[in-house]
């Protein structure tokens, strides 16, 4: 097991390098270097020539691209320095972590939500195949998969505006937006969380229900279920201990793509609902070509999902004795 974990973590390194290259490529993508942007974009403001020269040296802008990459990535890895946001005139570091925390929070809560909802429904659908409830959940599942996050967000916003007369959005009530963290603020956050969680979680819930149902239908007629029944166990116990337990494996390996999808979903939903997560920040950064900020956000979001994938792999290895014993 330890060797497996070690191997798996080692395998992450090329992934992380590739991810950082993609992020750097995105930083480099806009034409001209960012100082040009800085100077052209900020007409009217005086740009300190000395300051610009300092930055040019800091990012190695007159050196070859790989030197620039090295300067950038080594700054991040060794000094935790993500560079400077031009728009905000502050280090990227100061801007992202609060929002990143909220992204992690929303994605994780959504993940728990998806599991808590889809496992029982999947079990119900499989054990009551072709019942009215099963059909309802199947239809829900297909629609849930087909409706894009942002559209769902718009529709829910419209419904709550039109029929409940309130505009939803944001993660905090106005009183708490700028307030320091406190229990009241946490409570306020939780009261606002359900909407994004539902919006982001719908597609994932739909697909996990389908996966759970299909797997369980595969497992239920297997001989080991019958053998357990012949031992006098209750139906509930038989299902929970055996087929559900085994049907969980594909569900855990599905995490590998569900989690990235949640982080994606968080980005777009947050933009529509105006939540203070990484999504809107990235969006603004891209629009104003604030590339160090944008690149850093893409980098940390990718690292987040890569780590999520790693965790799901480890969880799977821990759940599956064949993997556990073998490696």
């Amino acid at each position, binding site marked *: 097991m330890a060797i497996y974990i070690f191997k798996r973590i080692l395998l992450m390194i090329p992934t992380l390098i590739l991810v950082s290259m993609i992020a750097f490529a*995105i930083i480099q993508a806009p034409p001209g270097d960012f100082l040009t942007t800085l100077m052209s974009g900020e007409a009217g403001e005086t740009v300190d020539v000395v300051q610009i020269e300092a930055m040019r040296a800091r990012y190695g802008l007159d050196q070859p691209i790989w030197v620039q990459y090295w300067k950038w990535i080594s700054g991040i890895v060794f000094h935790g320095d993500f560079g400077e946001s031009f728009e905000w005139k502050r280090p990227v570091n100061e801007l992202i972590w609060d929002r990143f925390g909220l992204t992690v929070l929303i994605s994780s809560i959504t993940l728990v939500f998806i599991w808590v909802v889809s496992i029982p429904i999947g079990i119900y659908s499989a054990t009551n195949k072709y019942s009215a409830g099963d059909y309802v959940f199947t239809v829900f599942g297909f629609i849930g998969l087909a409706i894009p996050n942002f559209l769902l967000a*718009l529709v829910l916003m*419209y419904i709550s505006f039109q029929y409940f007369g309130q*505009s939803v959005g944001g993660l905090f009530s106005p009183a708490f937006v700028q307030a320091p963290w406190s229990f009241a603020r946490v409570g306020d956050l939780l009261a606002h969380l359900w909407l994004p969680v539902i919006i982001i979680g719908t597609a994932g819930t739909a697909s996990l229900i389908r996966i759970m149902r299909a797997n369980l239908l595969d497992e239920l007629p297997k001989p080991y279920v019958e053998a357990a029944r012949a031992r006098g166990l209750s139906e509930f116990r038989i299902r929970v201990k055996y087929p559900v337990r085994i049907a969980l494996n594909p569900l855990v390996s599905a995490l590998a*793509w569900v989690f990235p999808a949640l982080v994606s979903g968080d980005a777009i939903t947050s933009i529509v609902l105006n939540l203070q997560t990484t999504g809107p920040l990235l969006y603004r950064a891209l629009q104003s070509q604030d590339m160090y900020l944008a690149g850093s956000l893409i980098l940390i979001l990718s690292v*987040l999902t890569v780590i999520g994938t790693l965790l799901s792999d480890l969880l799977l290895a821990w759940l599956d004795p064949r993997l556990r014993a073998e490696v």
Partner: protein
Amino acid sequence: MGNAQNQAAVTDALAEESAMKAAETGFRVATPWELFWWKFKSHKLALISAFVVLFLYVMVAFAEFIAPVSPATYNGRYVFAPPQGIHLFMTDDEGWHFNPHVKGYSIEVDPKTYGKTFVQDPEQVFPVRLFARGESYRLWGLFETDRHLIGPVDPGAPFYLLGADRLGRDVFSRLVYGTRISMSIGLVGVAISLILGVFLGGVSGFYGGVIDSVIQRLIEILRSLPTIPLWMGLSAAIPLAWPQWQTYLAITVILSLIGWTALAREVRGLFLSVKNEDFVSSARLEGMGEFRITRKHMLPLFTSHIIATVSLTIPTMILAETALSFLGIGLQPPTVSWGVLLQEAQNIRSIAVAPWLFAPGVIVVIAVLALNFLGDGVRDAADPYQT
């Protein structure tokens, strides 16, 4: 105690005998395509979906003809005009008779808020006909005509089947043109993905070894990344000054850069299965040549699996394009796509006034559902081991 084997041998012999009997009776064995079609037909939802998808692609091909007006045509008088229904019959002194028409609007101004509301005016009757004359256009740049599938007899009459937007443009016409862009971006994107996927998946499955592991790792990496932030980053790099078609192409390429992985996996799996597929070896035993095996058995299997994966990949492309364009970093107006159209619905005030701006969203859901059902149906029908 060797009789267990003995009996097994007996049963084998019996099975063989009955197989021979079946062959002697001489009923024609169905070709793989026929089997596929029979199974597909019995999947009603997939069959209906196939028609929906076909219908959408007809819209793609004949957008100019189907849309009553061009997507840019606007009319300040009809800002946010609600949808008109087509009435088939009309009553007058002589009773009722067939006369398809739409009712015009009268505008009421709220004395307090000065907000305009449109009310259907039963007095204003505008007859409607098929193949009506309207704006002239060149279909596929070849045929010049001014006929439209449906439209008011009098080209100046208001005709808003799905209402009007904030500039008084016809939402229905824009939807038809949007369908052209969004459905085709799915198709073109999948074509690019298919090339990448077939190439890399084929190489991976064919050579195996190190190449295979490297490509598999790459696929895993790509699948573990959050797509929307990445797509956002890449498409934000497209210069705004680029012409429409260039942006279109760039977005398509960006979408396929990440979308090829599912296809590559499918192709690789198929390649691997060719190597030890049972029915291929039994066909080989029957003395069929390699070419005939490929043509008779593998090709239908391959094609249907690819079709299934393709029709399951198109919706992800469509959803991605829609999301990006909706955010304003994908396709840009004046290009019209479902995502671009949904930008109009971004503002809660606009949709409160004109909920019909959700129409493109409804089409997105229908298209994605239909493509998913179609893909599922094709895959089920292609699977030779399930009933």
